[in-house]
């Protein structure tokens, strides 16, 4: 199989990697970029643990081939915090105990950050709809929602 050499901008860093066409963006991030924050859950688009932000949109990285991300701007959970300062969403997840085992957390963070960056003002029904996109099997949805509501306020107040 021919290797494809692609350039990705991930968390403001440009990376050039060489991959097979069949490699998912998720596997390329984890194996070729050493970014293991996006988690492999179901690997067929159901659970959302692998969610990253591609060109501003939340994307299940197990359903996108890395070769399709050529030239694209990608954000992963590793890029959320600014140094030691947590992103409002990370802070709220911590404080509201929206994390139990933590496996789904990076996906939830990237999903909700992308949704709120696109639509800063969402009513509760819309937020529930967004959160319903990903699976948390520690049944932490109420705490996740509480965190997302607080982070939404916090994100709106920041420039």
């Amino acid at each position, binding site marked *: 199989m021919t290797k494809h050499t692609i350039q990705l901008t991930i968390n403001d860093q440009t990376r050039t990697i060489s991959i097979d066409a069949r490699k998912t963006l998720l596997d390329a991030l984890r194996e070729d970029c050493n970014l293991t924050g996006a988690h492999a859950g179901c690997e067929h688009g159901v659970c959302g643990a692998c969610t990253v932000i591609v060109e501003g949109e939340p994307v299940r990285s197990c359903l996108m081939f890395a070769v399709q991300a050529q030239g694209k701007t990608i954000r992963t959970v590793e890029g959320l915090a600014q140094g030691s300062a947590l992103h409002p969403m990370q802070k709220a997840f911590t404080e509201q105990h929206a994390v139990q085992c933590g496996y789904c957390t990076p996906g939830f963070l990237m999903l909700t950050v992308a949704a709120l960056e696109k639509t800063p003002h969402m009513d509760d029904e819309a937020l529930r709809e967004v959160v319903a*996109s990903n699976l948390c099997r520690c049944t932490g949805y109420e705490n996740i929602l509480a965190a997302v509501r607080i982070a939404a306020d916090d994100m709106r107040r920041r420039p």
Partner: protein
Amino acid sequence: MKPAPFTYHRPLSIDEAARILSDVAEHDGRIIAGGQSLAPMMAFRVARPHHLVDINEIAALDVLTIEDAALRIGARVRHARFIPGAIAGPTGELFAKVMPNIANYSVRSRGTFCGSLAHADPASEWCALATLLDAEIIAHSVRGERRIDVRDYFDGAMSTTLAPDEIVIEARMPVLREGTRTGFYEFSRRKGDFAIAMAIVAFSVENGRITSPRVSIGGAEPYPRRIHEAEAALDGAAPDAAAFAAAADAAAAAVDPMEDAMTDAAYRRDIVRAATRRGLEQAMQ
């Protein structure tokens, strides 16, 4: 859970895509747009295309416009585009009603309307809506362009009359008249799951009587179709509970429901009845 190897192609124009697909179609070459159905099938190795022709870089497929009273939806238009206000009039309102029921937020940011038509899942909301609106599917190949009436398009569950070398580049459908009332109801066991059945309806009310009724049922049979028995029950009737119940009964009687381990025919028929009635009631709200 890793897809089988394939050769990747990234054309920049529709003609280039058609040329490539014409070369690779016989080697199980496939188009990939959003990939939100194809990629999972490849992960399960239910699909093992030897070639993928990626149409995501073809900007000409972004068209989403109303032209000569027809809505044109290009093959790169993603589900999330159909937010309220994106398309004018009752047609746009109906698209915005249906859209949030498709999969989930992330999938909607990537999956496409035309991709849903090409995939032809029995429970596809867009397939049922294209059926309701008498859509035309525009298929492109090196042999030229072919317009397929939606009634001649589906060929079974996840099967269409597209030739292996044809690309769905656009769907086109006449817009609903101003004042048309619309409703949508589907039932699935989990948020974002495949619907067991759904109803999409449209009608006008003139002088207290229903005119131009349309009822499209999806999810119940291998592919969606207009249920003329239900439409006949509505045509000319007052838009009241009795007419809606009659239409719902007619729809339930007319379908030949699919069965699976979780859902027998009688249950699916009941869901068709309830979905039709609730869709019609919603149209009056």
